[in-house]
């Protein structure tokens, strides 16, 4: 670090201390003697020392160059004069000579004048000559972007905002000026700004802009306001087109990325922007006052004078409510009267709000009479008339509205003709009616739910159908031994007495009938005394032991629900003892398959019967193929039919695949079988 760089710090000391000395001087002038001259003298002394330091550091800083010479020399010499002045002042104060006492105060004024001057020139050096009296940055207003000049209207304004504060006549960093086309072409000490660099395909301008922010040479330097992504794109675009100085925007090729950026440069001529220019800012008290009257009043944005008013579906609006809005009636651009009691008696109130761009009148009860008042709203863009007794003649009044873009007429008496008529006047108007029935007309009912206590039953089972849709008619078919397939209308729960598949569906006028639902119910008409399991199930899936298979409850696809008996890597043999000898011709076994959880359907069943309870005969043996590749979660009930026999006991062997199949993610792992129910017929 150089001592010169401390100049901006040190220079403030003499300014402050000298000002303090002067104020003390004024203060003590009116006081009776003895005057406390010591403190003032001390302050003056410090001023002298700090002035000298400031002058020396300033001199050193000026050696670095980059400053406008004429300004610099003014600043330099006045500063030196000022430093000498402070020294003089110190000695005048110290002296008791009459001429010194007499000359002291005028000299003080003179030194302060020098201070002001040197400060001003110093400031001009760093902040630019026009800093103090600079007009606020004049934004270039582009009326029509196509006709705008790329350099004058787009590029130069960017430079003016982001670059010129350091690259101007007063402060020309790197000897580069960016204030006009001529100077831009001249470049600075680093060379031409616009020609491509030898080392890369970029110009110096683009090179500096695209350097990482941390780099010393990145422009604008870290700490200054940076170029936005949009501004960089615009500069690049201009450079790519040979930095054309007198091209119009429309003559240069643009692309998708540039178009919205260019469009945003154009002066906003939307109704709201025009209104915002004309009206005054709204006082906060006004808004708070309205909110206390239960009227929601919101500024469109924090620095906009425009207001949106919402009457919050109130049913008690009177003229007095509208009177509250009078003070800023021209600021109001949105009026939400939806679901209020705003009817034909209040419509004259609309007259006051000539700047409305959005009006919501849905479900208020206004009639065609409102058209007259709406037609005066020349800025109107969006109008909601839904649910009001308005017809085509009400719309005719709107035909003169230049800005109208959206018109909602659902649930009114407006006809296709009326819509065509207003659209003929301007294609821009989007008239929204009810969304085409075609999309949603073919809506189907949700199927009913078939409900019963259990899926397996012993004597009879109560089955009911349920549907939430009020007025829907339910139908069902019982697929049992009667083979009656004509759907029956459902009115109340019914009973089934044999194994049955129940199907059902719902219908409703003008709706598509629902999909078919199915449910299977199994009758187990054999009274069981006891179930003995030859092998204990896996301890985690033991449920209620053998009883589980006879409890008439099916398991869900959730295998830990307590309805499943699980066996890991082994077959199962269950021996069931009937209460009394019964004729049996079918055994059905419920099982589960969840390959991802290592659970597979059984691969074989063997059934033995015993009429005396001790000697068993084999009745049937079934071998099934190994499980196919699958990851589906499924339940099944496998039926084993055999010659009818009168039995006291029956024994069923259910064979497990034992190991996970080859195709499984973990081949060879101990696989499971899960059983929930054994049913006899």
């Amino acid at each position, binding site marked *: 670090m150089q001592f010169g760089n401390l100049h901006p710090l040190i220079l403030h000391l003499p300014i402050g201390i000298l000002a303090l000395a002067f104020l003390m001087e004024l203060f003590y002038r009116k006081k009776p003697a003895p005057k406390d001259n010591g403190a003032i003298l001390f302050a003056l002394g410090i001023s002298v020392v700090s002035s000298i330091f400031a002058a020396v550091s300033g001199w050193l800083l000026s050696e670095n160059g980059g400053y406008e010479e004429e300004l610099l020399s003014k600043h330099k010499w006045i500063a030196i004069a000022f430093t000498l002045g402070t020294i003089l002042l110190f000695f005048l104060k110290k002296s008791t000579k009459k001429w010194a006492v007499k000359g002291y105060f005028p000299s003080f004024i003179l030194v302060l004048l020098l201070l002001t001057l040197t400060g001003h020139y110093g400031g001009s050096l760093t902040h630019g000559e026009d800093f103090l009296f600079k007009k606020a940055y004049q934004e270039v207003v582009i009326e029509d972007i196509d006709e705008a000049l790329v350099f004058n209207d787009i590029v130069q304004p960017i430079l003016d905002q982001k670059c010129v504060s350091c690259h101007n006549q007063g402060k020309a960093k790197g000897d580069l000026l960016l204030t006009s086309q001529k100077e831009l072409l001249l470049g600075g000490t680093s060379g031409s700004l616009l020609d491509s660099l030898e080392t890369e395909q970029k110009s110096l301008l683009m090179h500096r802009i695209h350097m990482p922010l941390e780099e010393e040479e990145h422009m604008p330097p870290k700490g200054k306001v940076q170029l936005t992504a949009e501004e960089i794109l615009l500069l690049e675009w201009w450079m790519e087109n040979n930095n054309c100085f007198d091209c119009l925007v429309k003559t240069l090729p643009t692309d998708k990325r540039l178009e*919205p950026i260019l469009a945003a440069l154009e002066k906003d001529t939307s109704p*709201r922007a025009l209104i915002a220019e004309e009206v005054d800012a709204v006082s*906060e008290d006004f*808004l708070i006052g309205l*909110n*206390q009257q*239960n009227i*929601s009043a*919101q*500024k*469109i*944005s*924090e620095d*906009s004078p*425009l207001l949106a008013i*919402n009457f*919050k*579906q109130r049913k008690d609006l009177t003229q007095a409510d509208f009177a509250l809005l009078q003070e800023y009636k021209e600021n109001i651009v949105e009026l939400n009267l939806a*679901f209020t009691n705003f009817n034909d008696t209040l419509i004259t109130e609309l007259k006051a709000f000539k700047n409305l761009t959005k009006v*919501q009148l*849905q479900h208020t009860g206004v009639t065609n009479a409102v058209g007259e008042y709406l037609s005066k709203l020349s800025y109107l863009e*969006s109008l*909601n008339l*839904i649910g009001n007794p308005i017809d085509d003649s009400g719309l005719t009044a709107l035909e003169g509205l230049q800005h109208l873009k*959206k018109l*909602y007429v*659902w649930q009114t008496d407006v006809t296709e003709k009326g819509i065509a008529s207003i659209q003929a006047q301007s294609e821009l108007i989007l008239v*929204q*009616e*009810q*969304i085409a*029935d075609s*999309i*949603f*007309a073919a*809506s*189907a*009912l*949700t199927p009913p739910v078939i409900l019963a206590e259990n899926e397996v039953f012993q004597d009879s089972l109560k089955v009911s159908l349920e549907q*939430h*849709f*009020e007025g*829907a008619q339910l139908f069902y078919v019982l697929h049992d031994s009667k083979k009656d397939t004509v759907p029956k209308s459902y009115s109340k729960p019914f009973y089934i007495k044999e194994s049955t598949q129940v199907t059902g569906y719902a219908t*409703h006028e*003008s*709706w598509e009938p*629902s999909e078919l639902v199915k449910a299977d119910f199994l009758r187990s008409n054999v009274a069981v005394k006891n179930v003995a399991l030859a092998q204990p199930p896996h301890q985690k899936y033991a449920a209620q032991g053998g009883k589980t298979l006879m409890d008439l409850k099916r398991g869900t696809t*959730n295998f830990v629900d307590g309805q499943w008996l699980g066996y890991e890597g082994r077959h199962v043999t269950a021996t069931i003892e009937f209460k009394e000898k019964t004729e049996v011709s079918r055994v059905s076994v419920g099982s589960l398959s969840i*390959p*991802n959880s290592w659970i597979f359907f059984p691969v074989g069943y063997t059934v033995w019967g015993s009429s005396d309870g001790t000697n068993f005969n084999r009745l049937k043996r079934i071998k099934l193929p190994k499980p196919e*590749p*699958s*990851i*589906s*979660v499924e339940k099944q009930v496998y039926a084993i039919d055999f010659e009818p026999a009168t039995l006291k006991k029956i024994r069923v062997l259910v064979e497990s695949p034992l190991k996970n199949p080859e*195709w*499984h*993610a973990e081949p060879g792992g101990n696989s499971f079988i899960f059983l929930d129910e054994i049913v006899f017929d």
Partner: protein
Amino acid sequence: MGEKKILLDNAVNLNRRAFLGKSALGVGGLALGSLLGCNFYRKEGELVVKENNAMGIKGILNAPHHSAKVKRVIYLFQSGGPSQLELFDYKPLLNERRGEDLPESIRNGQRLTGMTSGQDKFPLVGSNFGWKQYGKNGTWISDLLPYMGKMVDDICIIKSMYTEAINHDPAVTFFQTGSQQPGRPSIGSWLSYGLGSENENLPAFTVLLSRGSGRPNGQPLYTRLWGNGFLHSLHQGVQFRAAKDPVLYLNDPKGVSKETKRTILDNLAALNEKQYKEFGDEEIQSRIAQYEMAYRMQTSVPEVMDTEKEPDYIYKMYGSDAKIPGTYAANCLLARRLAEQDVRFIQLYHMGWDQHDNLPAAIEKQAKDVDQASAALVADLKQRGMLEDTLVIWGGEFGRTNYSQGLLTDTNYGRDHHPRCFTMWLAGGGVKPGIVYGETDDFGYNIVDKPVHVHDFQATLLHLLGIDHERLTYKYQGRRFRLTDDEGHLEKDI
């Protein structure tokens, strides 16, 4: 200056930190503090609760930062991570190369969940379902979503969403609060805090839940997902349930008349007010406001929840499921009714999209749950002129992998979580209708064009509501927090 004086100084809202701070500065600081009054310590903008009188919750912002495109949001959150590859992101290459291993060059070190990290092969799999082109731009939409297909000209599909989390809870929390760790306020709470409520009779932030048929026992949701975090408890989301009491503990106990209740509340408010004057705790004000809100909700909630009078053609739009309380369709219909009442943020959660296995069967059911009702909601808002100032969002917390989790069979497969790309759609004010934004590679694994981070999405959402996401902050534990943390930039092109 004795103890008594210190107690009196509660008027300047002493909390522990301020107290210690001032003690350290000496008692002089205290005296100065009381001379300057409480405004010296608290800037207007930092007040937690602003005039919570009968007019409902006032937002911290007097006006939006810039003019808002939408006034309210309906967020149809698809919890579990819907598979973009079955619904919106058409990748024929995956069908061509079905069963081939995912090239490492594509996976590129992506971390995996514990559920597939053991897998030694990642067999690519395309959608089992057909695709059709819909709308003016011929956008590809799955046959699972015929209704959404028909509304495609009104929605803006973002195919290039990505997130940082790979498991459900952190991912949902990240979407809702901007942080994977629980504890921050969720989007709806931020909006309630920032913009306040337009309807003093209903909360600004409501939540509706439904279970999907794709995976009925799917991931649970936690109430903290609609929690207010460190914001004031007034801004908490209120869950509306599909039961006799839509909002729990709202109804009066038997035998308590409306008048009795009013008297109780008035007396309670007087006591609370007294307490507030003494201790200056903002939570007391909030409590008064909540009691009042609950009182008004006793009439407003049943009114909103009463969908009986909706005409038949409305039920036809939303599907007959809308008649069954608690279904997604019924919730969509309720969402529209809440939006009509100017509720600021209506959050639906539909669970069951987490289809690790049995995806084809599960997603078919799941898509049927949401397709018609989601499309109907957009259409219904449109025909009511409400789509102009309402934003509808549809999407989950992440996407699903382009390879099968577990075994790939001829008809069946599963997909694991995939944070690198997924699809969402937006519809409504300020959003370009009918466009597809962003693109993924042919494998549907990485984003190749216009990536949108969750924070970008949140910043854009706030922007549409007129909020600069960098300026809606809340100072808590010495740090200014915001929804988008220290990231997020606007997606201006949607």
